[in-house]
């Protein structure tokens, strides 16, 4: 394991310190916590938006804190949901009396920890609502199991709910936007190389020199299929088709596209993937309203890519275009 780190057990603390050191105008670290909050939190007369999760997905989630997106992001240890006490600190820091919405990726640990934090916050008299993001079509959406995972599509939930909150939406309205986004967003990823949790020191899984895995999770959870590497076009086509199978878009639909690098893949390759995604959508008569290519929801140094499609309507388009000052999503 070769990494540019100090103590593997202190990567999260070091990272958070380095993060706030970079953006002191936008964010601050709540003392003694792993919570990154907007510098002006609680923003007056505004619903608070809090997300978070395990670390190792940078720029998620701290990078999405800022005017127009999240009010706070709570960082857990690498690939480990943050604990209820930390989430509670985040909730308390951003509540301006208008209530707080939690955006949670659908993992057992995240759901339980955020849920306990919500209970604690409610006990302190704060109105809290939750939205669970489950955009990963690699996993079957069954009520008998834990259901689909939350991956890169979460960033769109931050953006759109964040814009709604910034525009003065009520807790119910912000939650409704978040739920609509969840309903309309689907993703799937693939990896060509694994990642190594710093404190574990060995890779989470292995892939043969010529092997790829389709449907990988952002914590290296197993996907749908392992096979010999194919061309970028074939990879892009497979991912796009799997998303379309689930999202079922009619001709004339408008979408936002996200081609997300998992951490180790150079931007050149992301653009090569985007070329094919764009071609496929265009050939099906689907209108691409906006495209996001880059690293939005990573998996340490894993090499790979995920494709996300978000079906848009007029409300979502307006919210997508709204100003954001979050360091990782400026527009």
């Amino acid at each position: 394991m070769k990494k540019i780190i100090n103590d593997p057990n202190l990567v999260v603390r070091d990272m958070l310190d380095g993060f706030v050191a970079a953006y002191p105008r936008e964010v601050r670290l709540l003392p003694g916590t792993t919570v990154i909050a907007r510098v002006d939190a609680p923003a007056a007369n505004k619903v608070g938006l809090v997300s978070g999760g395990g670390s190792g997905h940078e720029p998620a989630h701290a990078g999405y804190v800022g005017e127009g997106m999240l009010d706070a992001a709570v960082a857990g240890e690498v690939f480990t949901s943050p604990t209820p006490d930390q989430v509670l600190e985040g909730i308390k820091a951003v509540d301006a009396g208008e209530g707080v919405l939690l955006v949670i990726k659908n993992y057992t640990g995240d759901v339980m920890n955020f849920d306990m934090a919500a209970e604690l916050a409610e006990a302190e008299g704060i109105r809290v609502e939750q939205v669970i993001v489950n955009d990963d079509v690699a996993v079957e959406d069954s009520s008998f199991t834990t259901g689909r995972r939350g991956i890169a599509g979460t960033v769109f939930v931050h953006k759109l709910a964040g814009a709604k909150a910034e525009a003065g939406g009520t807790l119910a309205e912000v939650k409704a936007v978040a739920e609509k986004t969840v309903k309309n967003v689907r993703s799937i990823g693939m990896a060509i190389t694994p990642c190594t949790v710093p404190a574990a020191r060995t890779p989470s899984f292995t892939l043969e020199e010529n092997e790829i895995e389709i449907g990988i999770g952002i914590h290296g959870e197993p996907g749908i299929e392992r096979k010999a590497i194919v061309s970028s076009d074939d990879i892009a086509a497979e991912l796009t088709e799997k998303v379309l199978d689930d999202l079922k878009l009619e001709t004339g639909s408008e979408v936002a596209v996200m081609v997300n690098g998992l951490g180790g893949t150079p931007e050149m390759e992301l653009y090569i993937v985007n070329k094919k995604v764009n071609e496929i959508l265009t050939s099906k008569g689907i209108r691409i309203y906006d495209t996001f290519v880059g690293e939005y929801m990573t998996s340490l140094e894993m090499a790979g890519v995920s494709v996300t499609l978000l079906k848009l309507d007029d409300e979502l388009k307006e919210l997508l275009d709204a100003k954001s000052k979050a360091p990782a999503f400026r527009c």
Partner: protein
Amino acid sequence: MELNVANTVKWMTLANEKIQENKTYLTELDQAIGDGDHGINMARGFQEVEAKITATDYDNVSDLLKDVSMTLLSKVGGAAGPLYGTAFLKLSMAVKGSETLDFPKFKSGLAEALAGIKQRGKAEKGEKTLVDVWEPLVDYLNGQNSFNAAGFESVAKEAMEATKDLEAKKGRAAYLRERSIGHLDPGSVSSFYIFSSLAEVLKEGD
């Protein structure tokens, strides 16, 4: 049996020892069917538990177990944190008021803990989770009138080993579906360390 402050501290110290020793093993189990952090998470949590309880004077076991719960809740994270945190909180609540924990109280406390885990995690037996160690132990204790360290440990061990053949339906391993069969459930293994530590501590006292 009687769990007092002294041997509960011993229990946690021993559990911490076993978890530290098997940190890599637990992480490897989680790499196979999860995300490879279970050993790291449990080691961090129990390290803190030991630090906390050896630095504090307790009047009763309930307060001690409450600190164990709170420490696990705030230091472990992931799925294991809230589940173990809930379990120890329930155990602590079940023995509130009494200085020590006798067998009937332990028995009902463990049943409450199991109920807490199931409620928090929405899992049932057979889904390849903590429940698959905790529920057999509660069932076993229901048929007992006194604590039998060897019997307790062997039930825990068998239950832990039996998770190997299960298909995961809850937690991160569920994404693997039938491919989760053939692997031990990491959380069940860490539970086994906790329970075998308890058995060892109480064996000494037998």
